[in-house]
């Protein structure tokens, strides 16, 4: 076997030529960019990325914060939309291998959105103590979706309180802090079971009175803490008095309200994840938790939840790094766990705009954001179609972006003139003159080989390539010498100011004009022009013979005779040069 590296691929072929046909393999590192559904993700996020780079920075901190939060939400909605599409594709896939591939992608996208959402809460929005808990509650509610199915099942049954999952649903509402919904369900139980009316009333009251951090700043943290302490003590009293002794379900709910870790841990299967456990714990024991304190609770929650049996998975490590506010660790873990640079590149860019990444210089000089963007964009360039997106990413990498772009853009295959025009426009807009010249030369040579002299000329005009224009003119003149007449008169007759691009081209245009004047029998003008051509020394040496031969019939014309005496020395000089 032998192999050769490409920009993002490897070419593999067998060298032992056994009986059977030999194959060439293309080994692609990044399969993701070839998935059709993911292409939407790349295109939409490209739009958001470019918008973020271009939007003017707001002066006020709060407005800037709101702007960045909106960008983050846009990114997340793009991920969610892609997830839905992928889910649809998975459902409609008939091939089981394809189905599993799509399902894996759905779970990866879901994990990405989970991580991004947490980063948005902790880093972009930087929610302070108080609102932090509310955001974390929303986060958990959004990502544990099994609940909704269960809820729907229970609510749609005839007798909800007799449903076997009834208490599960009430518990999960309580665990997620959805007090109103829990109370609503409990009221159904109270109606069905009048004996527990007393207990229900007390529990309902407790749940109604539970203090939660307010959305606006209507109360300070200390006020909230005081109220919460009060409420906590009240719950404690009711529990110790044995009010809920006759109903184990209600008793466990009360214990949860008190933040009893064992009681919460009993509902492990309902919570399913350690971070849900963490948020519930915080809700019922430390609702005014400060961002910096999260790390302690996170570590202990994970240990308690996972216990001895299981070790943390990559997703768990990433989330833990986020709770510990180790930004670089988060990015590093994500880079390792995910197969493609999309996620880390865009997240890092956003965090960089939040001014959270210090210039953490990597050993080869560029910073982390630029490194990731360069990697991502290089991956895009290896795709036959997504290369156009890559250009904008390189534009926004101040140190190495331009160099990378110059190298990549030369390697794009130019199948049609239209594609060449687009690539050319990209190069011209960025003053990449070398690349402009080389692309125009390639296209002009192609055109010349296909005998499209007009196209070749238009490419050399675009590049202002005098040498090539000379080549084309020589070709025309050669054709004229061989055939005795000009081809492509529509081109030569209408050269206009582009004639001045090269001497040879000017000569060609003027020579054709001479022929036209001669044909129209305007001999004196023709003679003047011919003399001018001879004296201006723009004719190629090979053509002087032809010029002199053309002069012969003119000399016989009456109007021309008086001219020749005056200009004889000039013509003789030209003759001697031959």
């Amino acid at each position, binding site marked *: 076997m032998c192999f050769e590296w490409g920009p993002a691929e490897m070419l593999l072929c067998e060298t032992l030529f056994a009986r059977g046909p030999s194959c060439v393999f293309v080994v692609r590192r990044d399969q993701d960019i070839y998935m059709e559904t993911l292409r939407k993700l790349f295109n939409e996020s490209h739009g958001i990325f470019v918008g973020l780079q271009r939007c003017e920075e707001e002066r006020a901190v709060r407005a800037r914060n709101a702007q960045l939060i909106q960008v983050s939400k846009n990114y997340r909605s793009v991920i969610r939309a892609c997830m839905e599409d992928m889910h649809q594709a998975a459902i409609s896939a008939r091939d089981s291998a394809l189905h599993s591939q799509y399902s894996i992608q759905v779970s990866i996208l879901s994990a990405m959105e989970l991580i991004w959402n947490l980063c948005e809460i902790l880093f972009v929005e930087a929610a302070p103590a108080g609102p932090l808990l509310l955001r974390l509650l929303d986060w958990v509610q959004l990502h544990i979706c099994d609940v909704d199915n269960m809820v729907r099942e229970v609510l749609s049954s005839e007798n909800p309180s007799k449903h076997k999952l009834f208490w599960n649903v009430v518990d999960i509402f309580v665990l997620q802090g959805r007090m109103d919904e829990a109370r609503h369900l409990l009221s159904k139980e109270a109606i069905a079971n009048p004996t527990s009316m007393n207990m229900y009333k007390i529990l309902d009251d407790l749940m109604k009175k539970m203090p939660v951090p307010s959305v606006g700043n209507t109360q300070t943290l200390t006020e909230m803490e005081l109220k919460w302490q009060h409420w906590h003590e009240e719950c404690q009293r009711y529990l110790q008095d044995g009010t809920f002794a006759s109903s184990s379900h209600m008793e466990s709910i009360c214990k949860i309200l008190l933040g009893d870790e064992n009681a919460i841990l009993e509902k492990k299967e309902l919570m399913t994840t350690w971070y849900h456990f963490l948020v519930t714990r915080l809700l019922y024991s430390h609702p005014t938790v400060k961002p910096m304190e999260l790390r302690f609770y996170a570590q202990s929650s994970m240990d308690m939840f996972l216990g001895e049996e299981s070790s943390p998975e990559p997703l768990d490590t990433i989330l833990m790094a986020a709770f510990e506010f180790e930004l670089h660790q988060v990015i590093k873990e994500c880079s390792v766990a995910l197969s493609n640079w999309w996620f880390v590149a865009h997240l890092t860019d956003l965090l960089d705009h939040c001014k959270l990444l210090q210039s953490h210089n990597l050993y080869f000089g560029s910073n982390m954001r630029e490194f990731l963007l360069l990697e991502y964009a290089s991956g895009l360039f290896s795709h*036959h179609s997504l290369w156009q997106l890559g250009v904008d990413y390189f534009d926004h990498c101040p140190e190495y972006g331009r160099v990378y772009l110059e190298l990549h853009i030369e390697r794009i295959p130019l199948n049609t*003139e239209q594609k060449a025009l687009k690539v050319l426009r990209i190069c011209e*807009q960025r003053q990449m003159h070398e690349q402009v010249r080389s692309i125009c030369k390639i296209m002009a040579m192609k055109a010349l080989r296909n005998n499209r002299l*007009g196209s070749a000329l*238009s490419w050399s005009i675009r590049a202002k390539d005098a040498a090539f224009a000379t080549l084309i003119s020589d070709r025309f003149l050669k054709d004229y010498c061989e055939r005795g007449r000009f081809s492509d008169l529509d*081109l030569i007759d209408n050269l206009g*100011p582009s004639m001045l691009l090269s001497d040879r081209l000017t000569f060609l245009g003027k020579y054709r004009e001479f022929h036209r004047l001669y044909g129209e029998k305007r001999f004196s003008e023709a003679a003047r022009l011919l003399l001018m051509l001879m004296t201006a020394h723009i004719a190629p040496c090979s053509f002087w013979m032809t010029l002199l031969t053309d002069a012969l019939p003119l000399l016989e014309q009456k109007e021309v005779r008086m001219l020749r005496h005056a200009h004889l020395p000039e013509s003789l000089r030209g003759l001697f040069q031959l």
Partner: protein
Amino acid sequence: MRAGTPDWPCLPARTAALAAAPSAVPRRSPSPRSQSGGAWQRREPCGAMEEVCARFVSQKISKARWRPLPVAALQPPDVFATGSWDNEDNRISIWSVGDVGSAGLNGEYQGEPQLLCDIRHNGDVMDMQFLDQERIVVASSTGSVTVFRHHQNSQTLSASHRWENAHCHADQYTACGGAACTGVICNNPEIVTVGEDGRINLFRADQKDAVRTIDNADSSTLHAVTFLRTTEVLTVNSIGQLKVWDFRQQRNEPAQIFSLTGERVPLHCVDRHPNQQHIVATGGQDGMLSIWDIRQGTMPVSLLNAHEAEMWEVHFHPSNPDHLFTCSEDGSLWHWDTSTDVSEKPSFLHQGGRSTAYFSHSTINQSVVSAWLSNDPTKDRMEITNLIPNQTLSVNTLDVLGPCLVYGTDAEAIYVNRQLFA
């Protein structure tokens, strides 16, 4: 046109005349105002705040065309076709846009284009045109021209006819190498195609071979073609020439040649005024919009410095020719509106502010003619709007029919606006 936005002073600046030619056509540089729209909102439901529906389709769109309406139709168009480019697997797709008021089947956003059917296409889709209600003619970068049929009862597409080597480079050493077919125009049953090989072909939809071929019609690439009259076509090429070809004449020479003054900037697109057959608009590689009067002279009547990069398509609105639309590589789509203010018209034509349908034909013609061919900026009342609030990648194609606009971009998205003149 847009409620709440300030009036734009509509006097474009007059720039200096060109040095090259004596009777230079002055260039004007109008600047459009941006359509009011806040930060790009994802998935905004149609019919609500935003009139434009976007859909990301995982393929770069090179052409989009509305299906023509039956002659006496009253409803707006609801089906369009798109072609892709630069894919290993290019496709022709047919989409339908639902009514603005109704909800979709799965609760998807109203008005978002739904894919009806698609079919694989060999090579990039360079140009596309509906031949009639069911057939689409597609020009490919491989040099072939294919007629696809859309079967509406089964919602499928099939290739009904193909002219394989409609365009190719004749090389004396090797066999025919493919040359891209760059433009196609139809006038049922005739189809005219042009290509990078400088050839013009005239096909008939039901005939296997070309009815007429003009070899080496042009020494450069022909970029676009459109019908001038039933037997005459207009072509534009990459050395800035507009040529008129008459199929009734047997010789293979253009009937007329027009060219730009000054630099021979390639022209990429051409369109003829729907009613005034002597008014022609072309778009150039430098984003310049030129208006020509075919009856007189060999130079354009006006030059407007429009876009910052290649203008890919120019279209007069078929039923409201006061309106012109252009789209460009720089990512913008401009709507040029020369319809004069109602208050300007003489009072007897007012009729209490009702539509222009009641006005006499000659008055309309007069105002239209003076609008597009006018050379005097003091009399101009041209309103130009950029319909794209956040431009990124190139808008490759656009099509207008009735109140509906569809356009496709290199950002792999299709946009539909069904309330163009609201």
